[in-house]
């Protein structure tokens, strides 16, 4: 069994199979085939791009159709609405400012009232000082009259209180003292006697 035997056997088997079938090939046919292949290769992306472009265009057209251009009347109506809204906004702002101002004033008034409440009443102070001065003067006059027995000085002091503070209660006391002194001087001339005088409400 040698190489020649294998070769012969293979060639006989090959010859028995017959000649293969194939079409005639030409350069023109190949060119046509290459053109078809090229078209097939570019047709898919080109078609896809065309479809995408068409879809985009359609969607844009649909979007524009859904949003019509505004008409002049609609513009005027919108302007009126805007003005009304502006007026409402201004009124609201004014009201808010007024409320805030009133609140600020109320708070200021309350603060002033509190401050005022903390200040003592000057009339009362004056009355108290007047009352004190009148009492002191009555007290001095009583001492002059009772302890030092200086009746004339005491009478002058009582008269001074009546003159300076006629409506004060110590003016009434001064009047009583003067009346007593008058009675006593009258009685002294009749009978000797003394009456004690003490300040009240000190």
């Amino acid at each position, binding site marked *: 069994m040698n190489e020649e035997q294998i070769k012969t056997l293979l060639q*006989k088997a090959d010859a*028995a199979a017959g000649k293969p079938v194939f079409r005639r090939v030409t350069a023109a046919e190949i060119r046509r085939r290459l053109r078809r292949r090229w078209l097939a290769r570019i047709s898919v992306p080109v078609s896809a791009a065309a479809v995408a472009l068409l879809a985009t265009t359609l969607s844009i057209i649909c979007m524009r159709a859904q949003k019509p251009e505004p008409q002049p009347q609609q513009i005027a109506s919108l302007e009126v609405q805007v003005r009304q809204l502006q007026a409402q906004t201004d009124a609201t702002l004014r009201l808010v400012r007024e409320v805030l101002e009133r609140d600020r004033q109320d708070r200021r008034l309350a603060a002033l009232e509190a401050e005022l409440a903390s200040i003592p009443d000057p009339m009362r102070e004056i009355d108290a000082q007047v009352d004190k001065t009148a009492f002191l003067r009555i007290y001095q006059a009583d001492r002059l009259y009772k302890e030092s027995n200086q009746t004339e000085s005491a009478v002058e002091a009582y008269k001074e209180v009546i003159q300076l503070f006629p409506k004060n209660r110590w003016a009434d006391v001064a009047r009583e003292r003067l009346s007593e002194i008058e009675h006593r001087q009258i009685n002294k001339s009749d009978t000797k006697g003394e009456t004690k005088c003490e300040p009240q409400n000190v």
Partner: protein
Amino acid sequence: MAAMAKISEEQALVERFRRGDDSAFDRIVERHAAEIAALANRLLGWPGDVDDVVQDVFVSAFLGLKRFRGECRLRTWLFTITVNKCRSHRFRRRRLRPVTMEEAQAVESPDRAGDQAAMDEETFARVRRAVHVLPQKYREVVILRYLQGLEVAEMGELLNMTVNSVQVRLNRARRRLREQLGDLLEEKS
């Protein structure tokens, strides 16, 4: 001298094609189409219809002929394209329909019944099946050497292998064939 004249004529055709003369390509096709079809038919297992592969081979040749440098014979270059196209074709076909066990076993089950003609036909079919079920690397060298009649050096050039490697591969392929077809070869001897 005749071979040299043929080579120079092929080079002239290639040059004419490069210059845009499509008729030169038609002439090349006319010269080599039968051989290309035969090689494709053998490499694909003698299916008979090899039109697709032949068309593909010449389309590739048409596209690549302008880059053909003439470092080998045009026939060898066309055979290289054919071998590569057949590999791709078989790979695609095998993915779709792998070789069945029945096909492989049919090589070893000769049917000796019937008359002489029928018996010969069966024998040759068995031989073709034996080649067909060989591994690709062995099938290619067997076909190129014994059916296409290529020299070992030319085969090495075509398959991008050294001469020694081609020889080793051929020996192994022959051993495989002997294993498959030993009875037929003994009968003949």
